[in-house]
């Protein structure tokens, strides 16, 4: 068994990066990570496809939060009214119409917050150490594709990536 290495390839634009990902996908190498300066839909879709993932599960966080919020509102408004039933302006103790805005607002609030929480959890944020092969220019103008592989396969992948249009490919210990 030989040591693992990480191939850090740099692309000028997202099309090339996508091609790289597809190449890796073709080679059944899924232990890769793509770095992009902006949410390039192409890259995202490509990597999702390569990994065989659907849409991000953040959606479920949001849905769950929204439902919780709505139910909380229902409970709070009706519950508090019943706790001490006071007559204001001859309205019944539990008068639903005025409570609707509260329910709506809480639904939004909880949904949004839990969505963001979900985003942080799923994206492993906050991250305290940098990913293998992260380069600062990946944040600004370059697209990076890092693939981990056995030392012996490294050459094969490097050619794959270069064919995909990588400007350069570096090796570093994983």
């Amino acid at each position, binding site marked *: 068994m030989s040591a693992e290495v990480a191939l850090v390839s740099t692309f000028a634009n997202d099309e090339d990066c996508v091609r790289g990902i597809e190449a890796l996908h073709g080679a059944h190498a899924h232990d890769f990570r793509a770095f992009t300066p902006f949410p390039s839909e192409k890259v995202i879709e490509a990597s999702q496809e390569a990994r065989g993932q659907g849409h991000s599960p953040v959606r479920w966080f949001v849905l769950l939060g929204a439902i919780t919020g709505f139910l909380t509102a229902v409970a709070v408004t009706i519950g508090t009214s019943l706790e001490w039933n*006071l*007559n*204001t*302006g001859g309205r019944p103790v539990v008068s639903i119409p005025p409570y609707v805005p509260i329910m709506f607002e809480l639904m939004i609030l909880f949904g949004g917050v839990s969505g963001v929480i979900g985003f942080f959890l799923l994206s492993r944020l906050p991250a305290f150490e940098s990913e293998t092969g992260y380069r600062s220019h990946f944040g600004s103008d370059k697209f990076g594709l890092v693939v981990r592989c056995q030392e012996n396969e490294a050459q094969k992948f490097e050619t794959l990536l270069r064919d995909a249009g990588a400007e350069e490919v570096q090796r570093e210990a994983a």
Partner: protein
Amino acid sequence: MSDGLSRRSFLKLAATAGAAAAIPGCEPAARKIIPYVVPDENIIPGVPSYFATTCGECSAGCGIIAKVREGRVIKLEGNPADPISQGAICARGQAALQGVYNPDRLSKPKRRKADGSLEEIGWDEALKLFNDRLAAAAKAGKDRIAYIGAPQGPTLDRLTKLWAGAFGSSRVVFWERIGTEPARAAADACFGRRDLPIYQLDRADVIVSFGADFLETWGSPVEQTRQYADFRTPRMRRGGLSIGKAAYVSPRMGITGAKCDAWVPANPGTEGAVALAVLNVMAGAGSLRHAGTAASAIQAQLAAYDPESVSRKSGVPVSQIKQMADWLGQAESPLALPGGDDPQTYLAAYAINALTGSVGNAMVFLAGAPAETASRPQETSAVVQAIGAGQVDVVVIAAGANPIFTMPASWGAATAIGRAPFVVWFGDAPDDSAQAAQLLIPTHHHLESWRDSAPRAGIYGLGQPVMQPVFPSRVLHDILLESAHLGAGEAAQSITWENAQDAVNAAWQELQSKLGLDPMGAEFWNQMRRNGGSFERAKALNVAFNPDALKGATPARVESESALLLAAFPHPFLYDGRGANKPWLQEIPEPSNQIVWDSWAEIHPETAAQLGLQEHYKSTYLYAGIDVIEIATPSGTLELAVHITPLVKPGVIAAPIGQGHTSYGRYASGRGANLWAFLPAGSRAVPVRARKIERQYKLVTPLGKSDMMGRSIVEVMSVEQLANGIKPPIELEEEENTPKLPYEMYDAWQYTGHKWGMTIDVNACTGCSACVAACYAENNLPFGGKEEVDKGRVMSWIRIERFIPSADEAAAAPNLYIAPVLCQQCDHAPCEPVCPVFASHHTPEGLNAQIYNRCVGTRFCENNCPYKVRRFNWYPAEWPEPLNLQLNPDVTVRGPGVMEKCTFCIQRITNAEIDARTEGRQLVDGEIITACAQACPARAISFGDLNDANSAMVKRRIDNPGRTYTMLPEFNALPAITYLRSLYWEKGKA
């Protein structure tokens, strides 16, 4: 109650309670508890005790009941046993509280130093000084001592006379500027007796008042207001439903004119001439419903008073004179009321009543009328002259008589008294006259001392102290007696009493024996103390009218040739000026003009245009002020801010009396002008020249617009409509606008048990503002002063709405729209659901609660209140010591930043309910009376349980079908207050 609790512990108690009450909101209550040393059986801390006594604020001498908590009087109410007040009380009476707790009361004797400043001296020194001076004066000869004081009831006045007599002086005057002299003189001439007639307005069906503002200050306003309300109540007369008809002859409308059908603007001073002209027409007409005295004999005297010439003089159209004559002539039981200072007005009115046979019916003389209280003007002026002439060594000014302020300029009282070698002033709050005194001695307020009063035949009011003195003052007559015993030697032996209390006691023993009871029996005395006096029914005399009396009729004093006439009238609250140091009376808007804290000159728009007077605005909307005019009178010039209003006769400047004190405490000093100083003796009208001066002044009123804009705030209907069951147009409109189908979103809320409500008869309400004053007293309402009112921060929970009918309304409306507006305690209260914290919500008893300590001050509720009856505490309320002792311990003192409003006197409701529950019984109707309803002299407000079909309040609605309405119904707030429409005669305008 005067024994028991010691003064020190009282003051401490008061201090404790006061502290607790005066601290707003979330402050700890006082931390010390100081129990009585020896408990007073009459006092249960926390439970009020009630003491019957007599009101000393004016000569009407109404019986009142003082509510006392922990030894301090906190509220005054009418004494139901007293036939005059019958349980009602006026605003001035309420404000007696602020007299007794006035922060500007003298707390120690003071002596004037050479440089004119005052220094505090000890009691012994002060009394020694006083006694020595008296003794010296007595030695110097007879009549070297003069006493000028206000009437204090028969016994004390007698005591005063004896005291002066002991020092060999007869110069004792009991001074009232608004006196009864002309009435007595006329009565003497007409009927040969110097008594005051008693008027029974409720017995008349037509009233014509010649200058008598009988709903404001004339006579006994509380009684007359009640009688007038009765007079105006629709009932079957001459086989038809109708109300009494009234006309008011006066240069200004005031609320008296507002409540009469016809306001007949006449030049001031010519009311008498008009009366004589009316009499002339009546006597001539010969078509009198009732012929009393021989008409011919009367008419013989009246050649000079043909309607035409009088009309020229008075500015009253002949038609109106004839109209009034017709009204009086055709009435079942007509009544003419004379007012003002002009004797011939009285002659004429008496003659009219005699002619129509109303003497003995609506106007009666009673057997055993009490002796005159006030001295006659000529006596008084004589004394003043004597003082001026240096024939007097010691002048005693006492008991609230304020000669320098009230006496006519022509008498030169100020200079005369100034010239006197030694002037002593006795009283509670140092007034203008105190400035001329070398020695100032604090005496008890009338709520702190023993008195009696005899306002009319058969009525002996007992005035007992209802609390321990607030200040270390003494009883005036005790001091006088002491001085007599010390200084007058054997001359004083005739005076047998120790002190004033003895004297009053003795007087009542006399009465006791007069009534044929055992003089020594204590039961009578206790009973008197409980009832507040002895109220017997005196029998009416039948008197004969002497037609020759009319020979004495002199032509009106004021000749109308002069361009302008100044008509001074007593301010309804400040009266002759004595009310000016009571913040409530200053803060409550004068009903007909709604102006506060000031004096003003009412001028008709036409006249204003002639004089080039106008209002000024800083920007397009910011009211900057109004022109000031300089009025030149024979006795000097004064400056007054103008109030341009149609409620005064063109060519007349009407100005209120009462302000313009040079020194009368912080609330009165330096406000407006003192009209008394410019009026001739025995008249309230004077020809003047007026010119605009280049100065502007800001008159302040809480009133926004005077135009009701046709909204259903004060609804009216004509007597004819009522009689014929015709609905007034406004009601038809409302019916048309109300959806027919059930249109409520939710089911109505069910109120089991009590549901409090009110019925207010707008027709009865005269706008006298007694309810407002009562609310201030009962509910600890703060007063803010002129500046705060100007910022729109009046705190009154109940207000008198006053609107002037627009030109097109005038035909079908009373002269003014007047109605009390307070929280309507709506079932669909718009203020409640908008409150975010439930501070405003509905109680199970149908009250619209406002929980002060829950309120965070969003002020949303007031925005949503159609009636704008909620009040926000914009400023921290302040009651300068010892005014805070008057605060009602049962009512929270609200701190700044919270909303407050009328609670239907929840503290009274709660206490009554607790009593009923602990006594295991049901509440009875009438057991709970709100402060406003209790005070109302017109009985316009009735309070009760809407769920109790037999309650008087509900009955009142049922008994007046066609008159009920709710205010601003288009908001569908379902108020718990139902108003009864005000009534007017379709052909009522004379």
